[in-house]
């Protein structure tokens, strides 16, 4: 099936505009409701992480490629900001299980990504970060 490609500025409003364009009716990427909701959650977290940590609020661009298929939605994301600390993706434990007394206000991003996405791969090459994953067509819910 056809892929959708876009390049956006690394800012929170640009991430919002891209998600609206991709998933709000009339959606650029046509997906079943459950898959669309999961895809939007994972992409929001992955893209906002790049804005906040990889570029650390400095100017930059993010490239996104989405390909719907039988297994689900295959996503590739590239940026030229900082590499992941230690070159690996965060574990993504639920902050609720770490700090149940003092309620956490953050740290849910990687937990949501790891819960909803499969086949997560990260590579740093030639000054560029490449993250890829698949949102499965049939999501298992906790």
């Amino acid at each position, binding site marked *: 099936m056809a892929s959708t490609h876009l390049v956006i500025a690394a800012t929170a409003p640009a991430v919002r505009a891209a998600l609206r364009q991709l998933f709000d009716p009339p959606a650029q990427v046509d997906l079943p409701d459950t898959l669309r909701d999961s895809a939007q959650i994972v992409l929001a977290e992955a893209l*906002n992480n790049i804005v906040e940590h990889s570029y650390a609020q400095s100017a930059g661009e993010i490239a996104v490629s989405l390909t719907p298929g039988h297994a689900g939605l295959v996503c590739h994301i590239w940026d030229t900001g900082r590499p992941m600390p230690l070159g690996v993706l965060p574990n993504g434990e639920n902050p609720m299980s770490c700090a149940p007394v003092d309620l956490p206000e953050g740290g849910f991003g990687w*937990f949501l990504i790891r819960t909803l996405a499969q086949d997560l791969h990260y590579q740093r090459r030639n000054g560029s970060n490449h993250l890829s994953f698949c949102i499965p067509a049939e999501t298992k819910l906790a």
Partner: protein
Amino acid sequence: MQIATTLSNDLLIIHVQEPRIDAACAIDFKEAMRAAITPQGQRIVLDLAQVNFIDSSGLGAVVSVRKMLWPDRVLELACLTAPVEKVFHLTRMNSIFPIHATLPEIRQQAV
């Protein structure tokens, strides 16, 4: 951040009139809530019927409003759309907020 409020003697309902609570508006959301919250002791219910997407920044902002009120009052949520319910369910945040399927009724006040 557009919000509206419905106030009675014992209840304040804050209606979020935005389709998203996300990284682009989390700070505005907190400020709008801070301004809307009454000093009196009403129950506070956040009406999320118009919100069709929340990300982890938005979720963190809702948690911070809960902390703002605690321990005198508990922030209650109402009318979650499916995508918003999903984020609360996955993160288990649904276990710390009273969540209502519909808005509580406003009792008519004697004049």
